[in-house]
């Protein structure tokens, strides 16, 4: 009898091989990854890829429709929309990456400690989560940024802080399930201190759900920061931030100059979609129910 394991792909070593493997199993993941990659390239190479300086004005080319020198048209200040859209990806990553890092750095340890220690720590965390759940994130972040001042740093801090409870909750749930697992009890029994049990033994096993959630929350960060800028309390025009650009374009929509608001919006949607697909794909890949096993 032959061995019943067949290779459909030769195993490639390292991170690249892993990503290719994931992409093959989940087209969703692959598409999301590709979109995010494109924007990452745009952000890194904006200075070379953009045809113009994003804040250079052409006084005689105000509100030119797409085509000609200005591929995506020009805005009310006579700035090139395409260049501004390309540079806008820097703001998107510049906010979502540190905000995402902040969410993880605050949320994950909180979740581990609350889930493992239980008792008062857990009770307090749950209460805080309940309180924050009662507030709509959009309005709370708007109000806080408006009150604290519209700086890039404040936007990152507010988004990072407000979203960290989500990570705390996910990690807490996983830790709770693992707390009485045999390997944890074994780790305790051989005399590991609590912090070591929590962060060396439990955390690596509880982190997957949070990892899959990260792209989704980063897409949220991109959206919220654009919303703040659109309303006028985040990054301010003429900085080439997508939300701020949509704000600039909003007044022209009603008179038919659609391109100023449309293109930054499309870029925003594409990147948010990319992050969401990435997260969705990851969740599918990590969901044990989709990895059915024989009985």
């Amino acid at each position, binding site marked *: 009898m032959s061995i019943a394991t067949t290779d459909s792909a030769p195993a490639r070593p390292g991170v690249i091989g892993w990503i290719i493997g994931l992409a093959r199993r989940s087209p969703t993941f692959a598409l999301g990854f590709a979109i995010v990659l494109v924007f990452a390239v745009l952000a890194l190479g904006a200075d070379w890829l953009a045809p113009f300086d994003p804040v250079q004005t052409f006084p005689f080319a105000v509100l030119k429709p797409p085509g000609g020198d200005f591929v995506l048209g020009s805005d009310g200040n006579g700035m090139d929309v395409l260049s501004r859209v390309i540079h806008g990806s820097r703001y998107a990553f510049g906010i979502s990456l540190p905000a995402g890092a902040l969410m993880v750095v605050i949320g994950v340890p909180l979740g581990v400690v609350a889930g493992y220690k239980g008792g008062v720590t857990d009770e307090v965390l749950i209460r805080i989560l309940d309180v924050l759940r009662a507030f709509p994130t959009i309005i709370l972040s708007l109000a806080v940024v408006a009150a604290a001042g519209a700086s890039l740093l404040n936007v990152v801090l507010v988004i990072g802080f407000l979203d960290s409870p989500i990570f705390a909750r996910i990690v807490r749930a996983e830790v709770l399930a693992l707390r009485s697992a045999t390997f944890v009890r074994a780790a305790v029994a051989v005399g590991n201190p609590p912090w070591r049990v929590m962060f060396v033994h439990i955390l690596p096993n509880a982190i997957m759900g949070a990892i899959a959630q990260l792209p989704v929350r980063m897409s949220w960060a991109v959206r919220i920061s654009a919303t703040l800028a659109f309303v006028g309390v985040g990054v301010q025009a003429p900085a080439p931030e997508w939300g701020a650009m949509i704000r600039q374009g909003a007044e022209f929509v009603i008179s038919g100059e*659609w391109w100023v608001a449309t293109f930054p919006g499309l870029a925003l949607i594409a990147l948010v*979609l990319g992050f969401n697909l990435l997260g969705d794909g990851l969740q599918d890949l990590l969901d044990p129910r989709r990895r059915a096993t024989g009985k």
Partner: protein
Amino acid sequence: MLILRFTLRRLLVAAPTVLGVLFITFMLVRIGHQDPVAMLAGPMADRAMLEMIRTQLGLDQPLFTQFAGYLWRLAQGDLGRSWQSNQPVLHEIIAHFPTTLELTLLSVGLGAIIGVPVGLRAAFRPNGWFDQISRVVSLLGFSVPTYWMGLMAIFIFFFLLRLAPAPMGRLSLEVIAPPTITGSLVIDSIAAGNWEALRSALAQLMLPVSCFTLIAAAPVVKQTRAVAIEILGSDYIRYARACGFSPRTVRRIVLRNAVAPVLTFIGTQLTSLLAAASLIEFIFAWGGLGHWGLNAILLGDFAAVQGYVLTLALFSVFVFLVIDLLVLLLEPRGQRR
């Protein structure tokens, strides 16, 4: 009796949450880089005047005393005065709330009517063509910013196609508004028999509600699908299949068991969309609570901001309570989820 006891218990459980909510709204003003006293007094005020206002507002007291004072005034229904309108904040909230509620309830209702069947259908054939399409569409719904969708809708349906009226509020300028009874123009127009106002109100609602419905439906599709898939994988559905129940009966069991979790989710949707309404209202010059609150935030009208955020938070506490009561009625055991 059971319901009364349950409500009381839930209110007790909600009490710390409400206290936390109040504390956060109270702190909102105090983290600011702007001094509310300076803003109130205006640029002409001198130092003595500033001190006087500060004492008047109690801002020179310790934080705890201030918080207690804030709670005491709230208990008496005093949410302070908006300095834009010089009206009591409570009056403004009561005046603006029905407008936003009308918009939000319509959109969430329509979103649920569309989203639940789509999510169910997708769940019954996971990874089939319908599931794939609904997944892409709902991902788009997740990704498109509310305000951008509003702008595009205005461009296409107002500017290009001339199908929609100008995005200038809730009623055409040529139409006489019906007397305010509930605050919902649709209901008030019907009550007054003012058909012209009704037609205009519905026409004005068309675009914002359509945009908002799409945004409301997307998460409902996703959640319904997830809930239904979880139920489809449960022991009792496997058992129902082993009993040879027809696909229709199996679907009915799934549906019945999905009601409570989906309803709970729609409740959370309702509260977050009540907030998201501010952006749609902003675009369509709607003049509801969201529009009013957003303006207050932008202008630094602190009492109004506090009032707005507090309203949203208390509304969500209230909605969760109502939903939990409904679930209690729908499910034989109260603690399920």
